[in-house]
């Protein structure tokens, strides 16, 4: 099999992993080729609109596991391939020199045993770092069930190390990934969290959950995310809309991947990490799933309309963050500017506030954007839904997350 064919097979098997980011690392390099950019850099965008920043490949798509949702499961009759460490290094170096990529994302199907597979990853990445003096970004997948010693060795070579939770509940995992143990994944996360430093996994860890392969509600998914952020200080949880790659009686049959739901989860994830929301603010047992028509923040605001409209010239930073259409950056801009002049609706627009959403929830110097009689839930809701519908074609399903 020639190199091109191998690359095709092993990129194809890796593409379902949502993680693309190359940001957050502060690793210093001396000599050699390449460095890391703290903000991360996207080098291209694929036909699905997702960013390409890393050479995302598997070491091999051979696997001794039989996870129902996975293209590479043992029982699938597909073409299999294995890279040699030297081949991975060659492709990475040649792509990096030409500025095609920001670095390498290396994962693998499990061959022989978790330890054996992990040793193969370490051998490859160590060759890349030590023989080829590669200084760019490396994101490696830790193999669940591998020994702690190997986890330590791999973490010292890479910028980011991650293990995928895949399914938010134990039941889902037992059902679809009978060979995987939740225990193994949380062990990895715990170890990385305790040992993380400037030298060990400097860009931190992330994980991924598949959305829509099992019956979990958004409440369960977000609850799991919140725990992961709290317990292991994860940098990111990625949500990946389930795509029916396999036929199996245990799997749902979906016509198209639940992209809108995935989008809502990302929006809510943002609210948890940067907007001081708690899962319980957004969802509860009575309403365990997000409103598909309205984004989680606007939905929350409509349910708490008694706290609105908020006065732009007076309300606190935390209150500004609760206003739909105002983000972290625009909230900070408002704070820094309002000491110097009276902010008008027009000024807000210049500061990057999405006024067509925010205007329903604010007053500027005591003034509402129209007659105050219109400050009613039905009216606002109708307009917000309408606005989202008309912009639906413009807005992309997959958000690219620039800042981490």
């Amino acid at each position: 099999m020639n190199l091109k064919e191998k690359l095709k097979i092993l990129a194809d098997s890796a593409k379902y992993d949502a993680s693309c980011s190359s940001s957050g690392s502060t690793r210093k390099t001396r000599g050699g080729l390449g460095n890391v950019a703290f903000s991360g850099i996207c080098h291209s965008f694929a036909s699905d609109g997702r960013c390409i920043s890393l050479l995302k490949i598997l070491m091999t798509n051979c696997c001794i596991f039989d996870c129902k949702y996975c293209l590479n499961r043992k029982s699938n009759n597909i073409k299999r391939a294995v890279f040699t460490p030297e081949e991975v290094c060659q492709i990475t170096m040649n792509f990096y020199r030409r500025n095609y990529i920001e670095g390498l994302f290396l994962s693998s199907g499990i061959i022989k045993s978790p330890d054996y597979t992990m040793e193969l990853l370490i051998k490859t990445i160590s060759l890349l770092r030590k023989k080829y003096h590669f200084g760019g970004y490396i994101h490696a997948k830790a193999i669940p069930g591998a020994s702690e010693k190997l986890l330590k060795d791999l973490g010292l070579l890479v910028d980011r190390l991650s293990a995928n939770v895949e399914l938010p509940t134990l039941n889902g995992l037992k059902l679809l990934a009978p060979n995987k143990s939740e225990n193994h994944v949380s062990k990895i996360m715990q170890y990385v969290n305790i040992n993380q430093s400037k030298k060990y996994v400097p860009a931190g860890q992330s994980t991924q959950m598949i959305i829509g392969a099992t019956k979990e509600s958004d409440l369960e998914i977000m609850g799991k995310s919140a725990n992961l952020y709290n317990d292991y200080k994860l940098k990111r949880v990625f949500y990946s809309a389930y795509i029916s790659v396999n036929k199996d009686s245990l799997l749902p049959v979906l016509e198209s991947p639940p992209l809108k739901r995935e989008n809502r989860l990302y929006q809510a994830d943002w609210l948890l990490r940067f907007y001081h929301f708690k899962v319980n603010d957004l969802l509860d047992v009575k309403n365990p799933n997000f409103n598909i028509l309205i984004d989680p923040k606007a939905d929350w605001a409509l349910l708490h309309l008694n706290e609105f409209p908020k006065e732009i010239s007076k309300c606190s930073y935390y209150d500004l963050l609760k206003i739909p259409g105002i983000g972290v950056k625009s909230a900070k801009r408002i704070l820094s500017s309002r000491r110097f002049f009276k902010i008008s609706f027009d000024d807000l627009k210049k500061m990057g506030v999405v006024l067509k959403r925010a205007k329903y929830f604010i007053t500027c110097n005591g003034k509402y954007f129209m007659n105050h009689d219109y400050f009613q839930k039905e009216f606002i809701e109708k307009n917000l839904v309408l606005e989202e519908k008309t912009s639906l074609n413009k807005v992309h399903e997959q958000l690219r997350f620039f800042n981490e």
Partner: protein
Amino acid sequence: MNNGCFIYNDTFVHLLNLIYYLIQNHLKPENIKNTLYSPNLLDHVIVLKIEEDSEIIAKIITSMGSFTFRSIYYVFLSSADNKELIIYYLLLNGVKYKEKVLYHRNLKCVEKTINISRYVLHEVHKYKGFLRFKELENHILYAEIEPENDILSMVSHHFQRRLKNEYWIIKDVKRKILSIYDKKKYFFVLEENFSFETTKLSQKEIEIEELWKTFYKTIGILERKNDRCRMNFMPKKYWKYMLEMEEFL
């Protein structure tokens, strides 16, 4: 001498010196342009003899902060019309508001400075990712870019750190300037003063380009195809120099 069109000698430092002179002497320019400017009939062109003194940079940074200074520099690199006037008005207000000047977002010059400098930085960031090198026969890496703003120096700065052990050349196609890196530093040369062969590629170049195109095509998920989203993040103007996009043009 009021209401004239003042001419500076094309350098950033000279522009700053001129503007400070205008401010100190309470001269209100109708326009400020570089030497390439061809005046129209109504223009009252004034060329002042002003020394080019780089002390001015430290002076601005001390009084208005380095963030403000950098923003002004990015405006200077931009291709915005009347960018010199925007810088003039910003510095004029800077004298009054000091390091807080950029918080006055209701001022037109502040709004423009913020937007233009953000736009310039955005373009630099895009090129850090979208620029593509080809390896020439002699192992020199060569890339062409066509940026709207004059960002060759900022892009070069990035690649100086990233590809420090390589020889590379980046060409700004629009401005006909080359940035040449000799493993120590980069310097700029006019295209007309430097001829070299860019068509002879290294032996394995085609093979590697093929590998990259294969990877690019494979990594997109068919079920999630979204051309509009791709176009938003990677507008068509960049495609011309990206080998993986050539066939989509």
